[in-house]
């Protein structure tokens, strides 16, 4: 129906109007968008690929060459172009981060809704599992799991292992958050009204509970993306990445193990570090602004400085 389409555009427009007002959110969006664009259009941004080796006129590989025309961010220990590594690495880092983030948010939201909505024994079971997972430190557990699964010689790519382990272990905080919100929403009168009409559980969850949770879920997905990217980088730095498909974390690992620091090759280890910071900062800025927009109680109000509000000063009133 075209009416629905119009309504959607109207809502989108209102959202954009509100979003535009907050500079930090725009900065966050810009950071994420540039990283995404760089990853998508990587082939257009560099003539080299991640495995090309830079050579001088004598055919010798340029190792630890400082930034120059042919390689804007210098080369690494084997003569690879760091800029090419960085933007191709963005593909891996962002893909792992986004997929893992979405999986963890999906698992967390589903379990949270189930626990909160049905309550009773289901709730107890889900929440005790959540508690146990929360008590175990994330990083060591993931390290052990990734390393063990690698050993098992399953026919799974190392990246999928990484994505699944992060995604399936990192849903605990989301589950708690969503559960507590579900608990308050299901007591509201429009849910009672839906039940009085004769609506089933699936209908109520889909039409009445999920729409109220959506802002929370979107916000937390954005926030969790940054964590997922950081964890991926951490695991890759510790050597659990896929060496054939280097991500930013893998780059840091190479830089560290091949003594880029003692060689003074700052162009090798700084760019991936800044890239990780770039994206996670973007996610956090965007996430916080979204959170503030969805939950007006978090917004700061100032008597002065806001265009819409005029502070009456002593001079004007004479008080």
């Amino acid at each position, binding site marked *: 129906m075209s009416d629905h389409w119009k309504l959607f555009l109207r809502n989108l427009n209102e959202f954009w109007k509100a979003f535009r007002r907050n500079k930090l959110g725009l900065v966050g969006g810009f950071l994420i968008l540039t990283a995404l664009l760089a990853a998508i259009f990587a082939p257009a941004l560099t003539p080299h690929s991640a495995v090309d080796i830079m050579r001088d006129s004598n055919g010798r590989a340029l190792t630890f060459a400082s930034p120059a025309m042919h390689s804007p961010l210098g080369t690494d220990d084997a003569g690879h172009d760091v800029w090419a590594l960085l933007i191709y690495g963005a593909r891996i880092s962002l893909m792992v981060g986004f997929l893992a983030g979405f999986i963890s948010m999906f698992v967390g939201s589903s379990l949270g809704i189930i626990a909160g909505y049905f309550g009773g024994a289901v709730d107890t079971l889900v929440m005790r599992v959540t508690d146990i997972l929360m008590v175990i430190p994330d990083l060591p557990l993931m390290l052990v799991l990734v390393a063990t699964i690698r050993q098992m010689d399953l026919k799974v790519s190392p990246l999928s292992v990484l994505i699944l382990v992060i995604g399936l272990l990192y849903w605990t905080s989301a589950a708690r958050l969503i559960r507590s919100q579900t608990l308050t929403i299901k007591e509201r009168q*429009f849910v009672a*009204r839906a039940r009085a*009409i*004769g609506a*089933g559980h699936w209908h109520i969850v889909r039409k009445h509970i999920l729409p109220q949770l959506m802002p929370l879920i979107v916000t937390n997905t954005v926030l969790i993306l940054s964590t997922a990217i950081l964890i991926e980088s951490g695991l890759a730095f510790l050597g659990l990445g896929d060496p054939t498909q280097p991500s930013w974390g893998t780059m840091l690992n190479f830089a560290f193990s091949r003594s880029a620091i003692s060689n003074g090759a700052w162009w090798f280890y700084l760019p991936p570090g800044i890239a990780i910071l770039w994206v996670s900062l973007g996610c956090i800025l965007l996430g916080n602004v979204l959170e503030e927009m969805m939950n007006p109680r978090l917004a700061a109000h100032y008597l002065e400085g806001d265009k819409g509000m005029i502070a009456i000063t002593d001079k004007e009133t004479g008080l």
Partner: protein
Amino acid sequence: MTPNPILEARELHTYFPVPQSLFEALMRRPHLSVKAVDGVSFALMRGETLAIVGESGCGKTTIARTLIGLEAKTKGEILFDGKEVALRDGQTAIGLQHLRQRAQMIFQDPYESLNPRATIFDIVAEPLVVHGLAKSERERTAAVATALEDAGLRPAEHYFMRYPYELSGGQRQRVVIASALVLQPELLIADEPVSMLDVSIRAEILNLLRDLRQKRGISVIFITHDLSTVAYFADRIAVMYLGRIVEIGLTREVLRDPQHPYTKALLSVAPAPNPRLRRKRVILQGETPNPINLPNGCRFHPRCPVAFDQCKIKDPQPTVLSKTHQAACLLLEK
């Protein structure tokens, strides 16, 4: 009007168990429960409006919720159109799902009973969707438009793509009424439908409900604490106190000639339009007793101005005063 009741409650009880701590369970303390509805019987005829009146906490909302199946009854029977309300349809039973198609509830707070993220169209069409009726887009649009216009929201198309926050309280309650009407119900359970609205809008909504009742012959259970709206709206009145009906009768009988001391007290403090007719006020002493530990004997005796010794021992049964009028008081049993 045929004399077969559309809805009948027989000795209806709804208790809410009080959660016990592990310690209490180990000590084998008795399980306590809040006796929100404690033995209520009434019959509602087709096309009739029955008002259930009482103070906060007397169980009137719980009755409404139990009738529509939002709370599980502890004991007793609910009969809809002569069939017992049960989980599934049967020979002599009507399933909850079926009941909820033929009976609709209007909730008290129009600000809370509409999903803030659904459009008015979706809200009003929801009962149709839930019951799998009016499958085609055109049928559904027509049904929603009719319901909205019947509820006084004209032109209906103007409201389709709006959200509840764009409407006023009165308009929202009209949306609630529209979504209750869309299934063409035979019974409407209205739980204080106007108590959250401004006085100026109350009359409009009450008029709307009265018109619908007359036009469609819908039976209504009208729950309220406000006696002045009852006089205007109801055919019969049931006065509730602490989970029981203490007096029931035609509106005229109960309001002009109240027999139970509680009804008398309620009426004496209701605002009268004519100040010269003001009666002597009976101000009840003390608080409503705890519905977990009900007093022995008559549950009204601790606050009753005319209580005597027997009241502490004997629980009064309804006394038939006329064909339509009953009250439960020991003074009447003599």
